[in-house]
């Protein structure tokens, strides 16, 4: 699971006011470099929840110290900052949480991640 995917996932447990962003409890994290797709990144950025990215990186850095440090807020004109673009791309596309779990911020319900696939299925009493 990429951090980009994580940025879109939320918890729908019954009674959850704000099931976003999900906390990450990583067990295995893999890093696989890929060619930077600048266009894709820049078109996705406006829809991204940057706070969630920032928080996720902070949580993962405890586990994986090679992650770059990101600014707490996104600068206005990011397309000119080549380093930040690369760092962001790296964080969003190249860091994969292989095993671990996601945690609902409101209910602490854990969603397991196995082989990179988070399981967001709810029990019958949670819907």
């Amino acid at each position, binding site marked *: *699971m*990429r951090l*980009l*995917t994580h*940025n*879109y*996932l*939320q*918890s*729908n447990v019954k009674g959850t006011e704000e099931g*976003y962003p999900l906390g990450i409890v990583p067990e295995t994290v893999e890093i*696989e470099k*890929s*060619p930077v*797709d600048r*266009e*894709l990144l*820049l*078109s*996705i950025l406006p*829809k991204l*929840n940057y706070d969630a990215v920032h928080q996720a990186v902070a949580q993962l850095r405890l586990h994986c110290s090679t992650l770059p440090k990101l600014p707490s807020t996104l600068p206005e004109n990011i397309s000119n900052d080549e380093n930040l673009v690369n760092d962001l791309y790296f964080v969003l*596309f190249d860091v*994969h949480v292989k095993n671990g779990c996601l945690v609902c911020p409101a209910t602490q319900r854990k969603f397991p991640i196995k*082989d*990179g*696939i*988070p*399981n*967001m*299925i*709810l029990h*019958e009493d949670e*819907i």
Partner: protein
Amino acid sequence: MTQTATFRSILAHEPIPSDDQHGYLHIQGAFCPKQQRRDGREQQEEKQESYWTVETLQTALSRVFQHNFASLGFPMAATQVEVLDTVAPFTKIRLIYETPLQALHVLVVIRQRKTTIQSLFQCIDLDEHFGSRPIQATLLTQQPQLSDTIAWTRSSPPKFRRLLMRPGESETLLQEERATTRFVFVSNLLQNEHDADWDEPFWVAQAIRSAFAVDVEVFVNHKSLSKYCHLGFRSAEEAQQAVATYQGKQVEWKWAGATGTEHSITSGMLFLDYASITQRSRRRLVRGDGPGEPSRSECTSLTADVQIPGLVLIPDFVSPEEEAVLLAVLDGPHAPWAPAQNTPTEGGTVKRSVQHCGYVFDYRTADVLRDRSNSGADCPPMPAVDRGDKTLEEYLGESVREGCGWEVVAGVIERVRRTTFSDEDDGEHSYKTINQLTVNRYAPGEGIGSHVDTPSAFGDGLISISLGSGIVMEFNCVQEETKGLRKQVFLPPRSLLLMSKEARYSWEHMIVSRMTDTIDGEVVRRGTRVSLTLRTALDKNGSPMACVESHSFPPCWGNPNLLSPLATPDCERNHVHAVYDAIATQWHHTRGKRGVLWPGATQFLQKLPPGSVVADVGCGDGKYFPAIWEAGSYVIGTDISLPLLETATSAASLCDEGVPESRRVSEPRRHLRNRPAIAVADCMSVPLRTGSCDAAICIAVMHHLSNESRRRRCIEELTEVCI
């Protein structure tokens, strides 16, 4: 023979031991002169008593049984007489005869003549006073008892049952028993009533043996001898042979009377059948088969004979074809019982399965819940017909052919509404206002307590359609003048029962909880009965409530806020989810991997501006992912089947060989394919942030959702992800 030899009495049914051994007869009584208690001679007697010793008794008895036997009517002499007691009053004597049969003859004479000790000694002119009670005689043997008869004694003779099919028993078990039993039921042994001589069971048994075999056990009951008896052969083979030999034949019984005269009697045409001994455990087996009372053999009849005003039974209201389709939907795997529907009553819950349509009937308050928006009052609407320009019967016929169960339910309800019930006293009636359906499922052994349907809740005219199995309904009159009247009516399958007027208001009706019903004297096992009860729910003013109905099937719960449509119905869980989980790999290889895409969907994806984020809800093995990636976008796929998602990341998915054009991924995007963004999720609850995506696709998914509210919900989820 030693003193320690063990003797046991021969039971009446046992064959008399063969002639190669002695016959032993045990006689009991007080073989001691009685003291005279009159005329002051008492003292004298006491002195004289001393002469009465074992020796004198022995001498006296041998004179009686070995020399003077004929004067007492005994056919033969005893070979030996033994006094078993050594002191007065000498109660036990053992007589030994040449053969057991001789001993039997003597026994019969003693019993028939009611021989007393007094009469015994009178014949040898012994002028003493002895007891005047009849002697007790017992036939003894040293042979051990058969092992399977060990538990029987004279006080607990075995009980038999004919091995006939009874409700609740397995046929294979019965056939096995019939083939292995050594007991046979015989009837028609006597053509006429028997004479007094026949009262001696040993003798009767011996006589019956003369017709069959000397070593057969004969179980005779005096009262029923003229009707039947039971025979116990040595083996099952012998029993089968006897049945084959004597079935329908007449036999000759021969026997020598106690006096030696030969008698001969011809039986009637024998009827033989296999029987077995009823054991307690067996009885428990039969009873334990199911709950409820055993059937009472009461006469039940059709309504033709039962005069309850307002009670009308229409047989064959539903055709066999309609019944089959109705049962398939009402009692099949998609049966409409509400999920976890509980039907609490005042003292528990209703045992049978119940489902209400239109309005819920609350068993606790015995009233209709009129506000459908209240919690607990939510139920599916009444099934309605949507027949277009077809006639009702055309619509029904077509629905039956197509196997559309709910349409048939709706059609049958409509047929009821259009039916005119004629009443002798009161003209014609029809019940067009029916607005409530209760589907009941009575498993064998289940019933319903005696009740009159709440008059304020339901109007006149209660209709009950029986499907699957018939049942006996009991009516108890509660009207003052005729209180206590009870009538039983058999409701055949596919019949319609109308309870109106007096039958509806003045008679309670019930179904007794039991496994069987007695119909015209015949015990019939109950099957599963599904009944459709049609009623008119009334408002507080006594006017019919509005009919809440829908022709969208299967019926679903009207208020989505009360009962979540999100809960996966069992039918989807069992027939969609489980299937995809099981066939995931195969599906991937034979379907998904071929990469046949819907052209419209592909066009839609290609038109999206590059850099879009697409949600693919129900993505399966990610068939559409390459098209999205190649369009310069990012896709997050969700599916309920983890095995199917796993095929998206399997080695087969990641290889380029033999992959069709539509599934190929260009070099710069291979990293996306190698680690696709996928998550396990239900399309009823898509776990993506509201408005986070630019587009959502949901391809070949909607048809897996089993009802309209779930399909609507899925579309709502898709829109919410994008807007």
